[in-house]
């Protein structure tokens, strides 16, 4: 029996956040602090011949100006992949703070630190830059042509392919292809979208000329951020301190590693100025100059038997990764792994993922990390196959869905799988049997659709994953847990303390979590890959065993009983239920810890551990309404059934699912970054980027399918990204059910939908 795991404990940071007390990077004001502004390239591709700062320097209030001429030229990768890429692969280090070449509109050229932000911005206008424009390339197909302009000639010689082609092979798709009797093929196109997290990127860097650098940061991976900064500035990592303040206003993948270049630029300026420097991205900078979701296209082919059994899957993905690699290469792996190959029984798989450099804003990590793209491609093809076979799409999925005990191609086993239940529950919630395939006429037409998928509970083994942590019992018997996980929103720090309190056996109100700070807390990879609760929890439950042993050993001597008969329940040392009589009088841990302290003993454990991985599974169903006259699509309901093992805090799990549902709705129907050659992306503000708002939220039902994962701490699996993955497939499938038109390109904006309706049905 757990006292906290499985309960809707109100999140521990709720009070701070609801009262305005909670601090974010943007709320940090240090004495003597300067403000930064950044000069960015107006060209998509150009050589930077010279940067003349002489006029700008003369301005009153300007304290330091950083350019390629006075900052380190170290090559780095601004994402955590710089330190998490698994051997023998090497990360692509293709970025510099400021470079001799600018590779997209918005690329950094210089930065100013001044007494006020207004002065810093004014000074930018006085910096004279001489550029030599170079030919540029903006999409995957053009970039792959012979003789195409080379975006990163040093890192992708001759072909703009970033990091090499990502290949997945399982069974033998080629040899077995013709064993199938029915063949489906689809090509889908997906747009670039933006994380648009509420807090823009930011950092406050405070360099001490004695050689210590402290950086308040919006990073979702404090340790990797620290290691990247130490490399860039050639400093001992022990002299670089990265700290969330402690809250971060959303992440969604966009700040795995540095927060774009906020930390690097603030630090470079602070080193030059020898004063603290605050650099907060404007909303426009955030939209235009930080990683986005990859746009691109995916060609999927399924070979199947006439009875619907899948024989082989062949997928080729072509993704636009923009000007720099960041996490593009890893992402192509996940597109092929979790995105396309993960949820079904495919005995034969062939996947090639091409991540292509272009002269556009970089694409990198964004909730789902390539899986939403892969899932949209595969689910479109599965729907196509169902149509060819004359089968119900739900039925075909149930036939081929993975289940417990199945073999698959991943290098770790399916530890638990309730995908079948997910599919059935989602379908039931949406009213599949009553609603699917009902002929629709008139102006407003309704339909239902379904999609499913899988993801990960951490990055392993695709990238390095482990945690270090310590746990100690304070002199008053309370518990302090520490690992440098960030709190970017999901409530991981609450969930982890629920796990720790239960695992140790102390009341949660007497427990505290020190997190998000590299000087205070031991190593954590950071929040990505839906990992935090799973990976950090994986270690905490193991450390709790050591801590209890230590307590029992000392308590045994102190109380003169056999340590193996002792238990710790709710902060009291008691005899185990099954221990021989007589049982000891319950002894408060507070008393014991104090007595231990008086005898020079503290209960403290630390350790580090790499977790295994456990795949979560999920299915989403959607009901939509399409207006045949306007092309407007209204989502009436989204039903999401998730196998996440045990839900440590169900209300927080629902929060993750609902969050992903609405983000997925935006992906399917409206969000889109639109490029204008010569100008860059149009969408430089919330106003120009159509995020879903409260008035459009459909009915949502989150169904947590009861499960238990044998490897997860207390049975948990990852959930953070899952809600994003099969949403677009379900919605697009529902639109086809409503109006008989299959869309192979998202988002389904009214214009796009109406055009197609007119093509098919006439005016």
């Amino acid at each position, binding site marked *: 029996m757990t006292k906290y795991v499985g309960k809707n404990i109100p999140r521990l940071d709720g009070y701070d956040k609801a009262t305005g007390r909670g601090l974010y990077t*943007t709320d940090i004001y240090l004495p003597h602090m300067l403000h930064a502004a950044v000069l960015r390239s107006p060209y998509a591709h150009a050589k930077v011949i010279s940067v003349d700062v002489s006029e700008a320097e003369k301005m009153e209030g300007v304290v330091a100006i950083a350019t390629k001429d006075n900052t380190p030229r170290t090559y780095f990768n601004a994402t955590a992949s710089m330190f998490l890429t698994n051997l023998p692969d090497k990360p692509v280090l293709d970025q510099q703070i400021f470079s001799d070449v600018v590779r997209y509109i918005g690329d950094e050229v210089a930065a100013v630190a001044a007494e006020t932000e207004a002065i810093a911005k004014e000074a930018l206008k006085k910096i004279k830059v001489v550029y030599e424009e170079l030919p540029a390339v903006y999409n995957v197909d053009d970039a792959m042509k012979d003789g195409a302009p080379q975006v990163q000639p040093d890192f992708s010689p001759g072909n703009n392919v970033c990091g090499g082609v990502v290949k997945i092979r399982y069974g033998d798709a080629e040899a077995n292809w013709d064993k199938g009797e029915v063949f489906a093929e689809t090509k889908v196109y997906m747009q670039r979208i933006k994380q648009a997290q*509420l807090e823009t990127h930011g950092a406050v860097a405070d360099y001490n000329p004695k050689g210590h650098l402290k950086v308040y940061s919006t990073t979702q991976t404090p340790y990797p951020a620290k290691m990247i900064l130490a490399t860039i500035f050639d400093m001992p990592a022990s002299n670089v301190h990265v700290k969330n303040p402690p*809250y971060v206003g959303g992440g969604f993948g966009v700040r795995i590693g540095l927060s774009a270049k906020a930390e690097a630029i603030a630090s470079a300026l602070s080193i030059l100025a020898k004063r603290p420097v605050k650099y907060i991205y404007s909303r426009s900078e955030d939209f235009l100059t930080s990683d986005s979701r990859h746009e691109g296209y995916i060609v999927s082919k399924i070979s199947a038997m006439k009875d619907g059994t899948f024989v082989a899957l062949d997928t080729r993905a072509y993704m636009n990764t923009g000007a720099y690699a960041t996490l593009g290469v890893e992402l192509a792996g996940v597109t092929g792994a979790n995105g396309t190959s993960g949820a079904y029984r495919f005995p034969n798989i062939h996947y090639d993922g091409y991540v292509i450099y272009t002269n556009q804003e970089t694409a990198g990590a964004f909730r789902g990390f390539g899986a939403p793209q892969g899932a949209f491609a595969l689910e479109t093809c599965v729907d196509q196959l169902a149509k060819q076979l004359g089968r119900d799409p739900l039925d075909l999925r149930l036939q081929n869905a993975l289940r417990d005990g199945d073999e698959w191609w991943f290098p770790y086993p399916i530890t638990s799988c309730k995908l079948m239940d997910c599919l059935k529950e989602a379908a039931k919630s949406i009213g599949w049997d009553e609603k699917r395939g009902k002929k629709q006429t008139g102006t407003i037409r309704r339909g239902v659709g379904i999609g499913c998928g899988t993801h990960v509970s951490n990055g392993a083994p695709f990238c390095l994953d482990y945690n270090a942590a310590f746990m100690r019992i304070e002199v008053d018997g309370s518990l302090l847990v520490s690992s440098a996980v960030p709190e970017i929103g999901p409530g991981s720090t609450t969930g982890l303390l629920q796990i720790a309190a239960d695992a140790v056996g102390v009341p949660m109100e007497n427990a505290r979590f020190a997190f998000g700070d590299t000087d205070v807390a031991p190593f954590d990879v950071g929040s990505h890959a839906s990992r935090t609760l799973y990976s950090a929890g994986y270690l905490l439950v193991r450390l709790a065993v050591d801590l209890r042993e230590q307590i029992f050993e000392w308590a045994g001597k102190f109380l003169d009983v056999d340590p193996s008969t002792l238990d710790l329940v709710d902060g009291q040392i008691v005899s185990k239920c099954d221990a021989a009589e007589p049982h000891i009088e319950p002894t408060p841990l507070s008393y014991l810890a104090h007595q231990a302290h008086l005898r020079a003993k503290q209960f403290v454990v630390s350790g580090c551990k790499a977790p295994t991985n456990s795949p979560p599974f999920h299915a989403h169903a959607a009901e939509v309404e399409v207006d045949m006259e306007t092309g407007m699509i209204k989502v009436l309901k989204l039903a999401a059934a998730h196998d996440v093992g045990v839900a440590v805090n169900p209300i927080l799990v629902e929060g993750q699912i609902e969050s992903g549902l609405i983000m997925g709705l935006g992906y399917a129907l409206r969000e889109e970054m639109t490029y204008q050659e010569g100008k860059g992306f149009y969408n430089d503000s919330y106003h120009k980027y159509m995020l879903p708002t409260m008035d459009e939220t459909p009915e949502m039902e989150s169904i947590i399918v009861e499960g238990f994962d044998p490897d997860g701490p207390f049975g948990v699996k990852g959930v953070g990204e899952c809600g994003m993955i099969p949403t677009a497939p379900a919605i697009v499938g529902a639109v086809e059910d409503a109006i008989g038109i299959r869309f192979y390109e998202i988002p389904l904006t009214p214009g796009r939908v109406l055009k197609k309706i007119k093509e098919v049905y006439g005016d």
Partner: protein
Amino acid sequence: MKERLVTTVNGRRIERYVDPSMRLVDFLRDELLLTGTKIGCKQGECGACTIIMNGTAVLSCIMPVMKAMDAEILTIEGLEKDGKLHPIQDEFIKGGAIQCGFCTPGFIMGAKALLDENPSPTSEEVREELSGHICRCTGYKKIEDAVLKAAERLREEKDD
């Protein structure tokens, strides 16, 4: 050129000489260090900077600071009274309506202005009224539920 500003913030009378070109949000955050009010866009598009001025929800990021002259301003910091959370704050915490928390102060202030004006809003009215606030984390459903629950509690408190 600085101008004299007299205003009341969370019940405290403030008199300062300010740069009149300043936005109200910068005055609150930079000058008064009331950093609970957040800046999400600085263009009046996301609602994170919402405060209540003379009983109405306003976007402090596009409000010139001199508009605060002789005004009564309430920010998120002024909502908790005598160590007791406002029911909206409490319901946001209990109902899972908070994730990263960056939009939360704006949402709570927007919700307060709404419930002050309309103590019994329908679900549709809540959605309509708060649709100017962007939240990228929650999917909005739990925020809507929290506001409706807080409305119910506030009505009950009034009846008592």
